[in-house]
């Protein structure tokens, strides 16, 4: 199919888009939440794929090749996007504050309905990640959110494994600092005072 598309067969390329768009969408969704943003990223991925078909040698899977293009496209889009100002605890909604408090109490967290919890947490995660550097977002999302290995992230981004490790280490530190700032006085006195 890739050979046909490379030879200019539009139907073959349309089939590639149809077959791999769910995968590209799922992957782009890790970095963007709005449908319009995900669609824009996915469209850009397939445009690039069409122009770079000549570089696809058919050794690896088409899925892997497209995933690499998706990672780099999303990274570039994140870099070109304006970063939001730092999130403070005063900026949190009531639901987000409640979610954070519940996280500190396992019993309360169990009482909280799972679906509500997911939605609020995903919103809050997005707001925290929007303040972070694109490279931090990529390693945190892939390694800590998706359980990807350092080697996999290195292959997807084209970075060295050493760079991925260092980036992940620093990104975790920045993410932890951001969450600590949001928690503020929410930490129980027994922990805070110990």
């Amino acid at each position: 199919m890739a050979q046909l598309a490379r030879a200019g067969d539009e139907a073959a390329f349309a089939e590639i888009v149809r077959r791999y768009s769910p995968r590209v969408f799922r992957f782009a969704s890790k970095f963007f939440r709005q449908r319009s943003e995900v669609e824009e990223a996915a469209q850009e991925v397939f445009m690039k794929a069409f122009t770079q078909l000549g570089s696809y040698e058919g050794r690896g899977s088409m899925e892997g090749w497209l995933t690499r293009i998706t990672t780099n496209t999303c990274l570039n889009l994140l870099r070109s996007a304006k970063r939001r100002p730092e999130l403070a605890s005063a900026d949190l909604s009531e639901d987000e504050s409640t979610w954070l408090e519940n996280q500190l109490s396992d019993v309360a967290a169990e009482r909280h309905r799972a679906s509500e919890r997911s939605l609020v947490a995903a919103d809050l995660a997005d707001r925290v990640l929007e303040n972070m550097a694109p490279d931090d977002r990529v390693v945190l999302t892939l390694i800590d959110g998706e359980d990807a290995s350092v080697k996999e992230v290195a292959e997807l981004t084209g970075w060295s494994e050493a760079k991925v490790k260092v980036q992940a280490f620093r990104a975790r530190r920045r993410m932890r600092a951001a969450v600590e700032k949001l928690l503020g006085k929410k930490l129980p006195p027994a922990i805070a005072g110990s």
Partner: protein
Amino acid sequence: MKENHIIEFLESRSFASLNESERVVIQAHTANCSSCARAYEATKIASALLRERAVEAVEPSPFFHTRVMAALRERQNEVPAFKRLWQAAGALVSSMTATVALLAVLSFVVPGTQTSATAQASESNGYTAEEVILNQNDWQDEQASDAQVLTTLYPADDAGAK
């Protein structure tokens, strides 16, 4: 275990990858260290946030591949459009060059012919072309008519016309 050891250890790995024995050691330390306890809680929450975020995914619409193919055709058509623009620009440059050449001929060749004719005329009436031009204001002051000027400059032609 030193304070920094827990924090750096937490930062070196994803929270989800910590095994049970490592968590026991961490919790034992955090029971007596407030800053590590705080870091541990924040790391746990950060991990929970990232995992909740990872669950969400947008599915492509049924028209997505149509949209991509349309965008692709549009982008492919951009190249001939550029070529057309380039050709139009070339034609414009050619016509401008021709116009400039024509203007140059009109400015340098035709006036040259007029100058020799004017010189001949000046010989007969004692005025040079420069004098006529420089003295235009005087002519105007004297409210000389075009006919008078022509008579002064081209007496022979005038005589011939008569």
